[in-house]
C-alpha cells in the first residue's frame, strides 16, 4: 500500500533523507522512530506529495506520487506535525470543507463528517470555533480531517504529540483499530507507543534506516529488552561517528 523506493531529499548541501526504502502493507501499522531532525517528517511530506523528492519515488496503492499526484493523494489521509487548521472556522465547518475538497457532496459529506466527529470524540466541540479549542481538540480535529474519506493509507506525523495520557491512549487504540484494514505509517519518539500500537517499527537516523523489525524483534535486538537502549545505541552511535571524522 505504501512503497518507498530509494527516496532522497536534499536541501542544498544537507541530505535530509538518504536513499530510504521500505514498504507498509495493508493491515500493517509501521512506527517511524528517530531523533529530531532524522528526516521522519520530510519523508512523510514526500510520501503525501507536499515536497517533491530529489530522487527516488513513493507509491501509494500502486499510484506514484511523482507521476500521478492527484490520484495518489485521494488514497491518503495525512495528519501534519503542526496539526494546521483554519482558525476562523468551526470544527464542523472545517470538516465539511475538507470533505468537499475530497469530493464528498450532500448526504455523503454529512455522513462522513458525522462519522469522523464520532470517531475522534469531537461531539462536544463540533460547533465551536477552532481558535477556542484546546491543543488536544485541535489535534483531534486535524486527525478527523484525515479520516473523512476513509482512506486506505494513513500517514500521521506525531499523532499523540501534546496530548494528555487519556487522549494518548484513545489515539493509540484508534490507530490499532484502524490499522486492521488500512496501511498506517505514524511517527513518534515515544517508544512505548511502538509496543502499544505498532505491528512493525523502523528507526531512522540522519535520513537512513538503522533498524527494522517487529517490536519483539527490536526488543530482542536490543539485548537488554529495552527499546530505549536500542534507540540510544543505534542513534548516538551515528553522532559519535560524525564527531570522530
Amino acid at each position, binding site marked *: 500500500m505504501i512503497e518507498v523506493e530509494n527516496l532522497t531529499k536534499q536541501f542544498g548541501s544537507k541530505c535530509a533523507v538518504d536513499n530510504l526504502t521500505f514498504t507498509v502493507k495493508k493491515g500493517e501499522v509501521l512506527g517511524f522512530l528517530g531523533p529530531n531532525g532524522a528526516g521522519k517528517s520530510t519523508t512523510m511530506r514526500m510520501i503525501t506529495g*507536499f515536497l517533491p523528492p530529489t530522487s527516488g519515488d513513493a507509491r501509494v496503492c500502486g499510484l506514484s506520487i511523482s507521476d500521478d499526484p492527484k490520484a495518489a493523494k485521494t488514497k491518503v489521509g495525512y495528519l501534519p506535525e503542526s496539526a*494546521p487548521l*483554519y482558525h*476562523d472556522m468551526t470544527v464542523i465547518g472545517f470538516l465539511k470543507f*475538507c470533505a468537499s*475538497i475530497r469530493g464528498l457532496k450532500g448526504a455523503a459529506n454529512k455522513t462522513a463528517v458525522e462519522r469522523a466527529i464520532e470517531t475522534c470524540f469531537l461531539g462536544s466541540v463540533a460547533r465551536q470555533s477552532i481558535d477556542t479549542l484546546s491543543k488536544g481538540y485541535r489535534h483531534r480535529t486535524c486527525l478527523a480531517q484525515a479520516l473523512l474519506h476513509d482512506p486506505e493509507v494513513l500517514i500521521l506525523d506525531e499523532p499523540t504529540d501534546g496530548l494528555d495520557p487519556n487522549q494518548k491512549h484513545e489515539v493509540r487504540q484508534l490507530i490499532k483499530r484502524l490499522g486492521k484494514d488500512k496501511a498506517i505509517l505514524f511517527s513518534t519518539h515515544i517508544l512505548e507507543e511502538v509496543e502499544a500500537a505498532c505491528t512493525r517499527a523502523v528507526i531512522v537516523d540522519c535520513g537512513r534506516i538503522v533498524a527494522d523489525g517487529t517490536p519483539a524483534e527490536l526488543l530482542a535486538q536490543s539485548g537488554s529488552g529495552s527499546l530505549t537502549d536500542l534507540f540510544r545505541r543505534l542513534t548516538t552511535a551515528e553522532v559519535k561517528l560524525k564527531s570522530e571524522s
Partner: protein
Amino acid sequence: MTSLTIYKRELTSYFAQPTAYAIIVIFLALSMGLAFSFGNFMRVGDASLEWTFFFWHPWIFMLLAPAVGMKLWADEQRTGTIELLGTFPLSTWSAIIGKFLAAASVWLVALLLTFPIVITVNYLGDPDNGAILAGYLGSFLVCCTFLAITMLVSACTRDQVVCLIVSVAICVTMVLCGYDDFTRELAKAVSPAAVEAVVSFGVWDHFRSLNRGLLRLQDLVWFGSFVFVCLLGTSAILSAKRA
C-alpha cells in the same frame, strides 16, 4: 469542483472577520468623499462620472487593494495550512483561482455598493449609462490587476505586513507610471521611447479608455495578461519554495 470549494471558504473567511467590512467602508467613504470634495461633483455638473468619480479609483485601489490580498498565501504559509492544501487532491492552480476570485468578489461587492452615485447622476442629469458600466469594468479590472500582484507577493512571504508594503509600492509605481504629470516630468529626463516603455506599465491608458466608454480589445488583453502572468508566477513561486 475544488476551485469553488476554496472560493467559498475564502469568501466566508473574508466576511467572518472585520477586514472586508473595514476595507469596504473605507473605500466607500473615500470614493464618495473624494468625488464630492476634490472631484467637485456638484460644481462641475458632469454626469459622466469620468473625472469626478472614477478618476480617484486607481489612487484608492493602489493603497487598499493589497490590504484584501495580503493574507491570501502569507497566512497559509504562516499557520501551516499550506501543508494541508499541498496534500489535498487538488492542483495548486485551482487553489490560486479560487483565492483570487474570492478577493475579487470582495472588491466587486465594494464597487457595487457605490450604486447610490449612479442613481444620483441619473436623477440629476442624463448620463451615458453604457459608459458608466464600462467605467465600472475598468475600475474592477484595475483592482483585479492589483490583487493579482498582491497575490504574487504574498506567495513570497509569510509576513502580511511585508506583503502589504511591497505590493503597495508596486501598485503605486503602476499608477504613477502612466499619469500625465509624472510622464511630463519623465519626458524631460529620458528619451521618448523610454517614456513609452514606462507608460505601458501604467494603468492609466487602459483605464481611461474604458472610462470613456471605449471597449477596446487591447485594454482587456492588457489587464487579462497581467493578471494571468501574476497568477502563473504565484504558481511557480509556490512550487519553487518546496523543491
